[in-house]
């Protein structure tokens, strides 16, 4: 069964029900039921017209859910009058993205709702990807739907809210059977096909450029491989080429945003045949651009690393000294720069300290290993 096709059809099936006068919450529930049914029955009995099948089943589910005869008759009249429609499926899909990323939703609710209504994933799949019980995820989604129930379905919103949600899904990476990064790319591609906006293209380029490194990013034992040590032969050159081309198309439009700037940095890394040949001077310049369009302090932390590579560890440490030491990963950056500055003793101590405050297991193990490496070398 083509589960990706099934997912891709989801927004348009929701919008068919929407045009029949069904409100978003009920339409989304009915389509979810149809998806679960499709996953169950399609492998043995694939339909000739998948979209038609989904519309029929979802519509039947909706009618079953709303027993009132009067309402049903009224809606059947609507169906009779249903023409080819004046609103295109593309506009409907776009409206759905905006609704699911509405600013009144918390980030976790927006992510869950987007994955279900736009992504066509089942509640069970989303719950397992985020390692929470299915009942919890079901409640998160139904609360999110109640929150947006008063929002008009047809009004465009701020595309930045949608991009933020897709970025969150991508950055969550891979923590279960479901490949969230690949799903985020699919949804961003679909968004890019419905709206012409350089930041959408920028985010898609950023995702492709990072996804291209995926195979090289972890060792067989699951440990993190830092960018400088990655086997660049394992980078996906096709994805890189596509990402770079997209980025260039976005940049010529001269409406820079944070995702284009981040993608530019990723592209410069992708462009270097070896870590030593990285154009750090240009990367610093892009971090400066990035700092101009976003006030995220993490950007300045990453910039300090780049300055350390471009102008030497001393310059990097000087850039670091201007930042708040309580920033996440500040100590890890300080450790790295001190090692480059020829002070393994300080570096080892800072690596060990950074490991204590690491936000995830892979980073903690990596930092502990760095401290151990320096401590072992000093004993020899």
């Amino acid at each position, binding site marked *: 069964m083509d589960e990706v096709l099934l997912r891709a059809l989801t927004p348009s099936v929701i919008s068919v029900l929407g045009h029949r006068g069904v409100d978003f919450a009920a339409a989304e529930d009915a389509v979810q039921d149809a998806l679960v049914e499709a996953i169950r029955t399609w492998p043995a009995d694939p339909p000739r017209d998948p979209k038609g099948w989904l519309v029929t089943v979802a519509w039947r589910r909706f009618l079953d859910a709303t027993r009132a005869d009067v309402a049903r008759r009224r809606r059947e009249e609507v169906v009779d009058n249903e023409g080819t429609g004046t609103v295109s499926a593309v506009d409907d899909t776009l409206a759905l993205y905006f609704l699911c990323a509405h600013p009144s939703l918390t980030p*976790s609710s927006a992510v869950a709702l987007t994955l279900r209504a736009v992504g066509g994933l089942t509640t069970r799949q989303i719950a397992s990807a985020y390692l929470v019980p299915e009942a*919890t995820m079901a*409640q998160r989604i139904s609360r999110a739907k109640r929150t947006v129930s008063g929002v008009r379905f047809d009004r465009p919103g701020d595309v930045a809210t949608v991009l933020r949600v897709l970025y969150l899904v991508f950055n*969550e990476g891979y923590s279960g059977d479901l490949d969230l990064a690949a799903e985020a790319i699919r949804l961003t591609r679909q968004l890019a096909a419905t709206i012409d906006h350089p930041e959408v293209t920028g985010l898609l380029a950023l995702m492709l450029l990072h996804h291209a490194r995926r195979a090289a990013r972890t060792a067989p034992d699951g440990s993190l491989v830092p960018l400088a040590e990655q086997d660049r032969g394992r980078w996906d050159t096709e994805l890189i080429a596509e990402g770079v081309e997209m980025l260039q198309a976005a940049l010529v439009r001269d409406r820079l945003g944070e995702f284009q700037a*981040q993608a530019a940095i990723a592209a410069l890394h992708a462009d270097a045949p070896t870590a030593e040949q990285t154009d750090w001077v240009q990367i610093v310049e892009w971090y400066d651009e990035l700092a101009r369009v976003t006030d995220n302090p993490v950007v300045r932390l990453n910039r300090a690393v780049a300055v350390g590579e471009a102008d030497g560890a001393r310059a990097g440490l000087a850039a670091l000294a201007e930042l708040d030491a309580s920033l996440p990963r500040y100590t890890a950056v300080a450790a790295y720069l001190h090692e480059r500055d020829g002070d393994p003793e300080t570096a080892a101590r800072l690596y060990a300290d950074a490991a204590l405050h*690491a*936000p*995830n*297991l892979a980073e903690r193990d990596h930092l502990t290993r760095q401290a151990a490496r320096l401590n072992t070398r000093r004993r020899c």
Partner: protein
Amino acid sequence: MAKFLLLKHYRGAPAPINNVSMDRWTPAEISAHVQYMNDFAARLEGTGEFVDGQALAPEGTWVRYDGEGRPPVTDGPFAETKDLIAGWMVIDVDSHDRAIELAGELSAAPGAGGAPIHEWLEVRPFLAEPPTITD
């Protein structure tokens, strides 16, 4: 979207305000306490933030490997162990602030006399998956 462990201690936490051990409560007070905990978990399921909740028996056994082909060595329970975990709740929330807010509510569970225990709970973030985008 971060998971936190709300940890409840039999021993090892600072003394709560309403510091009467549970065996001195009335049965109705115990029922009210259990009901509060169940309602809290149900409410978090309703808000889409509940992951898991478990209680542990106070008795445990220490176990260690004793070499190839030999049964493991067991010992304990050790009455003198300083810290003793009573149970936990795992939540999945949008921010650290929200985790603190919920732990505060959980700490208000009623004890003796029906008044809040003001029990100290430990809030520990989970170490999760690393993010994809780091440079």
